């Protein structure tokens, strides 16, 4: 019987590794919540920066999921939530063309052409969104596109609370 032990151990190892390989990669656990918003030394492309609290949204005209979440940003903006955009790794020309085609829901749009501010904000890609509280603290960090569920359950409550205070 002992002869089959190495084969058995190898089979267990191979099965375990195969299962681990087929499992989808876990979502990154680390988020920026609790950190202060880093100083964003960026040129303003359009609009005027509102006072916090606001919803900060990083996007680019070349990013398909950004287009998917775009209509929802207009909806929360219509509800009175100030939305600030950062155009990430994109040209001013392309960003303006994008607004002309799809509308501009942002109170202000900052321009991060090099993508440097994105690293300060700890992004992995676009779109990512942050709820910035009154004291410029990051209260919520969303990686990936916003959905109506995330907006209703996670993001809007921050603005309702802040208004009631």
């Amino acid at each position, binding site marked *: 019987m002992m002869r089959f032990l190495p084969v058995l151990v190898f089979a267990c190892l191979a099965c375990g590794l195969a299962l681990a390989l087929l499992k989808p990669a876990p979502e990154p656990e680390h988020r920026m919540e609790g950190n202060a918003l880093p100083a964003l030394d960026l040129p303003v492309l359009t609009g005027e920066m509102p006072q916090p609290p606001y919803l900060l949204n990083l996007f680019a005209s070349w990013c398909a999921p950004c287009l998917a979440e775009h209509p929802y940003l207009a909806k929360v903006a219509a509800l009175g939530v100030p939305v600030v955009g950062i155009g990430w790794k994109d040209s001013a020309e392309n960003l303006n063309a994008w607004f002309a085609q799809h509308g501009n829901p942002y109170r202000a749009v900052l321009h991060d052409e090099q993508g*440097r501010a994105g690293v300060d904000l700890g992004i992995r890609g676009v779109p990512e969104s942050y709820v910035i509280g009154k004291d410029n603290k990051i209260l919520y960090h969303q990686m990936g596109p916003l959905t109506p569920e995330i907006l209703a359950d996670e993001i809007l409550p921050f603005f309702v609370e802040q208004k009631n205070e």
Partner: protein
Amino acid sequence: MNKVSIFLVSMFFLASAAWAETTLPDAAQEARAQSLFHLLRCVVCEGQALAESRAELAGEMRTVVREFIAQGQSDEAILSYFRQRYGDEVITKPPLRADTYALWLAPPALILVALAGLIFYRQRRSG
């Protein structure tokens, strides 16, 4: 030189051309940057250090590392900047903590078990 080695050599030079970034003028500072690139992980590619990644975000992170070194920041300060933003997973060498003991201690423990097994097996055979 056969075709395969010509191919491999040209791939090597193509690969190094992809890293043609603005390096730091000071050679010692650039060497520090390069060693940090091996300590930091590319957060959008699985299992690659900054040093070997061609992802755009990795290029941006390398720029940040060089910028901080040029400003005179310490290696610890630079690593903690990235850890604060991307968590422990951004460091290629995970810290030794209660929840990472298994990670650090399992390989040497396995080697010891294998060695003990080997010695036991050989003694039984000879004895």
